[in-house]
């Protein structure tokens, strides 16, 4: 304990332990540290895509020709809606409402599965048209590698998020989960949505 001579106020030293840094719990602090690293992983992927695109003398494939933007808009709608259900699950968990927490978690799982189905459909359409990691019918060979690499990693994150949320929903049903861990799952899911915001703009629109 430190006592200030000027004010006589005693304050707990932050370096003696027993104090939660930034007033956050272990689960939240840890997930945020993980998400910062994961954000930089995607920053690296998008930077590699930027390098491929900027350094290419040949024009980059026209997104209007390659993608169906209404379909991508639908995928965005599904992911944003699942973010709302996830946030509602966290709010319900904090309020101690187990049945609503379960309901919102399962709705989030459903949204994630629909998104993955849409992604799989998009991939199969492009592969059917001749796109691969090494080549594609629209021009610059690296376009395929960038597309499948970036959306593949994002899809893998969505899949792991779906699994985590399903496990969380089951634990809530058995009353063995805590609001902190539901919140940590929620942060991971919102991060997935956040990454999609960047991929949607930088890959599908620009």
């Amino acid at each position, binding site marked *: 304990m430190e006592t200030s001579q000027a004010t006589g106020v005693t304050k707990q030293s932050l370096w003696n332990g027993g104090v939660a840094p930034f007033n956050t719990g272990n689960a939240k602090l840890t997930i945020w540290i993980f998400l910062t690293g994961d954000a930089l992983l995607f*920053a690296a992927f998008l930077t590699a895509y930027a390098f491929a695109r*900027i*350094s290419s*003398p040949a024009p980059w494939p026209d997104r209007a020709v390659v993608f169906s933007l209404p379909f991508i808009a639908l995928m965005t709608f599904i992911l944003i809606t699942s973010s709302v259900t996830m946030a509602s699950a966290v709010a319900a968990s904090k*309020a101690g409402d187990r049945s609503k927490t379960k309901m919102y978690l399962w709705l989030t799982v459903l949204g994630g599965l629909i998104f993955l189905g849409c992604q799989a459909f998009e991939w199969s359409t492009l592969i059917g048209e001749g796109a691969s990691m090494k080549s594609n019918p629209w021009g610059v060979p690296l376009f395929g590698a960038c597309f499948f690499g970036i959306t593949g990693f994002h899809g893998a994150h969505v899949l792991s998020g779906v699994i985590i949320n399903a496990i969380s929903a089951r634990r809530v049903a058995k009353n063995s989960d805590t609001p902190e861990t539901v919140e940590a799952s929620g*942060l991971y899911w919102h991060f997935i949505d956040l990454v999609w*915001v*960047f991929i949607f*703009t930088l890959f599908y629109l620009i």
Partner: protein
Amino acid sequence: MEQTHNAQSNSVKSYWIIWFILLALSVGMIILDQTRSLGRGMLIGILLVGMSVKAWLISSRFMHLKYEKRNFTLILVLSTLILAAFLFGLISVDALNVLHHLSR
């Protein structure tokens, strides 16, 4: 119990408002992109601003960064943004160099 129930339904209501704003921004960005009525530079600028607003809404309202300690938020956001900006900035310079050599 009623207070926590009211707080919960107020939270859920605010999440749907953010949902609507995010959706409106996404649709607006797509329409702007499809009509191609703006110059390329202006279009990219507006899309990047739209992207940043959406990212801010998700991180501050859904991820509750708005309600965390300010230093915590600053450490997370600034470290990521500064590192990403450095990464992109330096790589872009290299990419333009490569383009210049390949175009000769």
